[in-house]
């Protein structure tokens, strides 16, 4: 088991953002969390990093309890995050951005890792010396994913990777996620508002509502489920 969250509660000040959440991610799986705005998706992801920390419950990653581990040490254990809104370093070059992802990785792997990332995203190699802020939204998302992969994570967290991207890039990003999983065996936890795409690419999914898991199942099941269709698929999109 890669990740196991058990009865996790989390608070933002007085707001009870997570109310006893149980989430499991197996090795080699793509798991997605869907839910409306403010359902607690991003909170769940951030609580993995201890910001906000779980006020009760347990988070176990790769066999070790990380509930009380300081934030900056968690990523060194093999969790990498592609934060919401990409959050690349705009005035630094593409290459420097990738380098930042390796802050705590073995420098001996740098050359091999950067080649791997460039092979995955050739556009990043072309733009290596360019300021990251000059990339398009989709390219920035690829850079954010590349940066996260530079640390050779065991688990990759993606927070709303399709947010604010052109439709062609949305397709491309989900294709990348699938490739990462099938070709590189990456375990992925994906938070998305774009339920349709997310459920199609995921092995399993959880539906989050008001800080609670209201539904869980395989991607196909959830896609077919009446509740999910009514609430997340046929409404807004």
């Amino acid at each position, binding site marked *: 088991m890669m990740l196991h969250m058990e009865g996790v509660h989390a608070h933002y000040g007085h707001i009870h953002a997570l109310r006893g959440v149980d989430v499991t991610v197996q090795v080699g799986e793509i798991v997605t969390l869907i839910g409306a705005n403010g359902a607690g998706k991003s909170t769940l992801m951030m609580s993995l990093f201890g910001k906000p920390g779980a006020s009760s419950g347990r988070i176990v990653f790769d066999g070790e309890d990380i509930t009380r581990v300081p934030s900056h040490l968690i990523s*060194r254990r093999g969790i990498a995050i592609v934060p919401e809104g990409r*959050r690349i*370093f705009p005035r630094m070059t593409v290459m*420097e951005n990738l380098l930042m992802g390796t*802050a705590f990785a073995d420098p001996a792997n740098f050359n091999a890792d950067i080649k791997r990332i460039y092979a995955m995203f050739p556009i990043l190699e*072309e733009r*290596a010396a360019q*300021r990251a802020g000059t990339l398009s939204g989709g390219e920035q998302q690829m850079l954010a994913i590349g940066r996260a992969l530079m640390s050779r994570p065991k688990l990759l967290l993606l927070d709303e990777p399709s947010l604010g991207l052109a439709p062609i890039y949305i397709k491309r990003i989900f294709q990348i996620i699938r490739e990462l999983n099938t070709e590189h065996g990456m375990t992925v936890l994906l938070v998305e508002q774009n339920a349709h795409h997310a459920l199609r690419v995921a092995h399993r999914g959880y539906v989050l509502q008001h800080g609670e898991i209201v539904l869980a199942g395989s991607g196909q099941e959830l896609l077919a489920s009446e509740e999910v269709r009514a609430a997340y698929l046929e409404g807004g999109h």
Partner: protein
Amino acid sequence: MSAVIIARHARTPAERFKDAAWVAFVALLLGIPMVGLTTVDQGGALTVQTRFGMLGAFVGVSFVGRFIFRWIIDQFRNRRAAKAAVAKVDRTPQVIKLIGWVVLGASVTMPIMFSDNRYVIDTATTVLIYVMLGWGLNVVVGLAGLLDLGYVAFYAVGAYTYALLFSHFGWTFWEALPVAGAMAATFGILLGYPILRLRGDYLAIVTLGFGEIIRVILVNWTELSNGPNGIGSIPRPTLFGLPFDRNPAEGTQTFATFFGIEFSGMHRIIFLYYLILVLALLTNVFVSRLRKLPVGRAWEALREDEIACKAMGMNVTNVKLSAFAIGAMLGGFAGVFFAARQGFISPESFTFTESATILAIVVLGGMGSQMGVVLAALVLVLLPELGRNFAEYRMLLFGTAMVLIMVWKPSGLLSSREPTIRLNKAAATGGQP
């Protein structure tokens, strides 16, 4: 790169020949009726005569003319293409580097040319103090993006550390220098801790308060700092133990007697100038090196996006504190030099105006730009000096100049940023086939 483009546009001699021959053929076709045949009035009757010589010349001129004309056009086109290709490569870093070497050369030779002009060298020394302070503050503000309005506090800590170490324990300049730097760094961390969670405006206000606290303590803690009266007769630095005095003390030598030259008050002034030049250059090398190390990149990443830094597993606390500590240490070094140069310090030298000036140098120069700091320090110190003739309008002029610079160059005089890591050659060519 330009070679490729020329090759793509250039014609082979055979092609040129064919092109010109084609034009000559057209000229021949047109030329037969227009040039080759002519009517001549022969006793009232028109007769047609041939002018094959003229026609031959016409075709020949067309051929050669076309050949030359085409060649000139190609030359222009190639030059434009080459220029466009060159323009794509950003030359700014090279230009800045060149300016740097020129400025360095000028600053090394300057005292030789003005060896009898105390005013010029004194002013240049002041410029260099500000350059050094600017480079120190650049670490905090320019690289780490932490707006510090109380930087002068560390300058004061450095200056007072030396003054007190001398007056209580008789320490010399060189002994006090590292201790004062460490002291300032400690104060930097002390300031850093309570404000770790603050950013932007809030951070600025707290640092402003910190700067004032240090000054107020220096004014009021009379037993320690001698209050507003300041501390005087601070000894000047020596050159490996050789003082710059007129008369050597019993059994010792001065700079003048050691080298067997006549004593001149200018020796000390010039020595101080070179001393601060060396200190400033060391600062520059130190900061440039740090920038290319992981800690320097972490500072810049912190400036760009703190949340992303945390997500990368960076210990933001340490990154911030290291920026504060190193910036403060450099300010402390500058403070020691200031105390030694003036021979007298009082809290009046460390008011908020100083902090504002140093910050203005960093911002005006272009945040994070080392060369920009030099140019901005020159502007900010020399402008008021040059403006002395304008008496009461001096500061007005100064303010106007600053506003104008910020209007024309909103991101500072030199705002381009040099990458801390470059592609190696193989990767570069691989990216652009």
